């Protein structure tokens, strides 16, 4: 991939601190650093859809800002624009045509950012911080889905101040994912709800959680026909569950695996178990990446049920990750996620976003 020739080809682009001479614990994988990263923890990353030429990366952070970079083929990242909320930004997503970015914030609002005009307008309002935002493009309608800590899931036509639909959830929304016609929301108290989006969004099934700990992240995967068929659910207990919606043999097809834990071989010391902060599926290979509070990312093949790779440990937790539309770039953000509480928060510590060439490492393992 021409994306990453040599790491030294960056030079420009602002404050690129590569730390190649100093201790590398902030970037042990020697991946490309995105220039001008946000000043507080990065909560979400999103790459532009294939409908747009080029690769644009959006990152929302706890500094209330949403930043946009253009990622060029030579690996250079060019800051393009920025928008603000009045509260930390918790989630971002793109519209299907790549012209708008939707941002959700702790300030209980969601905004639509028109990149061409660089204007952002509010399109949603909740009674509590909005934790997830997704664009839904159905044949018969289009809307934005927002999940909030106010226990509601609302659907917004961006032109109207009132939601098209509001669904009550059993608990606060902790994470969600949408791949038409399926949406999955994981809530507090280990709630798990699948929605179907045809004609209009409605609750399809409430699933008993395959995990025994707080849900943290969820990502839908597709089958060989490119239809959503299940999801991966991550918890705070270093475990991911692969769950199919209608498997031929649930006991056999659904499974969980442990990840993001320390002391693999050494059983004398207690094992440290870290939260899985985000899960992303490779758009082409169907393999998945998980990032955790332990500061590592791992690539997995859920069909061969094997681990493909685990990274070295970064000095900060990895809080977000995403693939670009063709799966060549894997972006992950290194910042503090509060997993060790207030005491370990150091506002002075730099936050980073790294880009990695993902074309080779996520190829599925051939099943023997």
């Amino acid at each position, binding site marked *: 991939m021409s994306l990453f020739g040599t790491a030294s080809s960056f030079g420009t682009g602002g404050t690129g601190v590569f730390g190649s001479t100093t201790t590398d614990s902030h970037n042990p994988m020697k991946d490309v650093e995105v220039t001008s990263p946000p000043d507080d*923890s990065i909560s979400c990353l999103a790459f532009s859809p294939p409908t747009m030429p080029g690769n644009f990366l959006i990152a929302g952070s706890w500094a209330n800002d949403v930043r946009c970079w253009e990622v060029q083929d030579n690996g250079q990242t060019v800051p393009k624009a920025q928008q603000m909320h*009045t509260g930390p930004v918790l989630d971002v997503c793109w519209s299907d045509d790549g012209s708008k970015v939707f941002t959700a914030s702790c300030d209980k609002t969601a905004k639509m950012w028109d990149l061409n005009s660089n204007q952002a307008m509010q399109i949603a309002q909740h009674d509590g911080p909005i934790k997830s935002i997704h664009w839904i493009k159905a044949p018969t309608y289009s809307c934005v889905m927002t999940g909030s800590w106010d226990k509601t899931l609302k659907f917004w036509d961006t032109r109207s101040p009132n939601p098209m639909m509001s669904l009550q959830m059993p608990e606060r929304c902790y994470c969600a994912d949408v791949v038409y016609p399926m949406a999955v929301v994981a809530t507090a108290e280990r709630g798990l709800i699948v929605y179907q989006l045809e004609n209009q969004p409605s609750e399809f099934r409430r699933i008993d959680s395959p995990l025994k700990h707080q849900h943290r992240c969820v990502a839908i995967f597709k089958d060989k026909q490119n239809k959503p068929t299940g999801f991966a659910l991550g918890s705070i207990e270093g475990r991911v569950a692969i769950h199919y919606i209608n498997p031929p043999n649930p006991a*056999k097809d659904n499974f969980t695996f442990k990840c993001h834990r320390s002391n693999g071989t050494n059983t004398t010391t207690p*094992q440290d178990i870290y939260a899985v902060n985000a899960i992303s599926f490779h758009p082409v290979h169907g393999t998945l990446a998980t990032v955790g509070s332990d500061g590592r990312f791992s690539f997995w093949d859920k069909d061969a049920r*094997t681990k493909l790779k685990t990274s070295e440990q970064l000095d900060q937790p990895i809080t977000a990750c995403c693939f670009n539309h063709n799966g060549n770039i894997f972006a992950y953000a290194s910042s503090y996620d509060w997993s060790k509480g207030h005491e370990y928060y150091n506002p002075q510590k730099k936050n980073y976003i790294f880009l990695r060439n993902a074309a080779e490492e996520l190829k599925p393992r051939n099943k023997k």
Partner: protein
Amino acid sequence: MGRKKKKQMKPWCWYCNRDFDDEKILIQHQKAKHFKCHICHKKLYTGPGLAIHCMQVHKETIDSVPNAIPGRTDIELEIYGMEGIPEKDMQERRRTLEQKSQDNQKKKSNNQDDSDDDDDDDEAGPSMQQVPAVQPQAGYVAPMAQPGMPPVGGAPGIPPAGYQGMPPMMPGVPPMMHGMPPAMPGMPPAMMPMGGMMPPMMPGMPAIPPGMPPHMAPRPGMPHIAPTPAAGPIPSRPAAPAVQPAVTKPLFPSAAQMGSGVNSNTTGVSSPPADHQSASSQPPFSNMPQAQQSPSGAAASNSLSTSISEAPKATFPAYTQPSVSSSTSSNPSSSTVAKPPATVTSKPATLTTTSATSKLIHPDEDISLEEMKAQLPRYQRLIPRAGQAHAAAAPPVAAVGSIMPPQQGLPPQQPGMRHPMHGQYGAPPQGMPGYMPGGMPPYGQGPPMVPPYQGGPPMGMRPPVMSPAGRY
């Protein structure tokens, strides 16, 4: 040998062709001679297991089985005891044995001169005769290659017996996966699901063992056992996938059915019959923290979901000690499930984050990390509240185009969205210079937004962002 016994011959080691009296001894031999790590001397259960262990623990690759005769060094072939031996090697072995036994017989009955000639004949002869004889036996072996399909009659008695031998293997398997955790902890928990699966019998059986094949390496041993008793249920499985496309095509019932679909959810009907099968297997897992989960949601899918996590075994590395996970998980789950859902504002439920063998790196409260962080005053001050006249943010400039002017109809939105704000700002008409009318009030904290900018230019984004403000 004579009668067709299981395996038709005394146990022998595929790797070095030695004979043993008992399969257990054979297995011990294999573990000590062929599956022992040359670096740490850990005894693994299979060749692939050894390979994985060396890779993961010592970061070394091995490509041949230690102490194996040439031609039998394939590290990728999953052989455990007598299971997993390729069919042609089995036939070869039988032929060789037949030869030897016939040789011995002929030597006794013939004189030495003839024995040389007979040897040649014997090789040709027995091989012909043995082929048909081998077939039925091959049927037993075949399942290895074709996962679960060829039912072998007359085997029902065997699998259960053979099954006893299985459990030791199964737990071995999980550790193989990752190679890291010791096999032992993996064993007992692995034993339980296995033992639990047996009573539910056939339906349960194929569920688990066939679950193995999808594992990293082929598990020839499993299909051996599984397909035979499950000959009945198994054929139904192929039918299921055939049905699948029709079933999963819509993924969800049509929207018209959604209503009924949702209603039926409450009765837990939505799951396929497989749920009931595993539901019947729930008792065996009762020692798992399932009991705690029963309050939440339908019991059938409950057991299904939890048994899923326990039963399908350690496929992934790190899925090592189910006992560890269950010990840590049972506590937290009891504390989180048993307690009524706590609201964020009041005392949240707490997790048990530390157990004897593991420590959850997470604050004690069972609320999300984002919720904890959002409670900091640092992040609170900017959130609009009724009456908060952060309107001190006079310089609308900072608005920085954050909100599109209401020309899109924002003012009308106000009533719906920001009643609290309304009061203070009365009528912030569009006219407000640079003030995102209406939109601004809640986010009136222009100045607070500025600091994060650090003056902007570094971003290089300022200029473009500023202009919108100037637009109105």
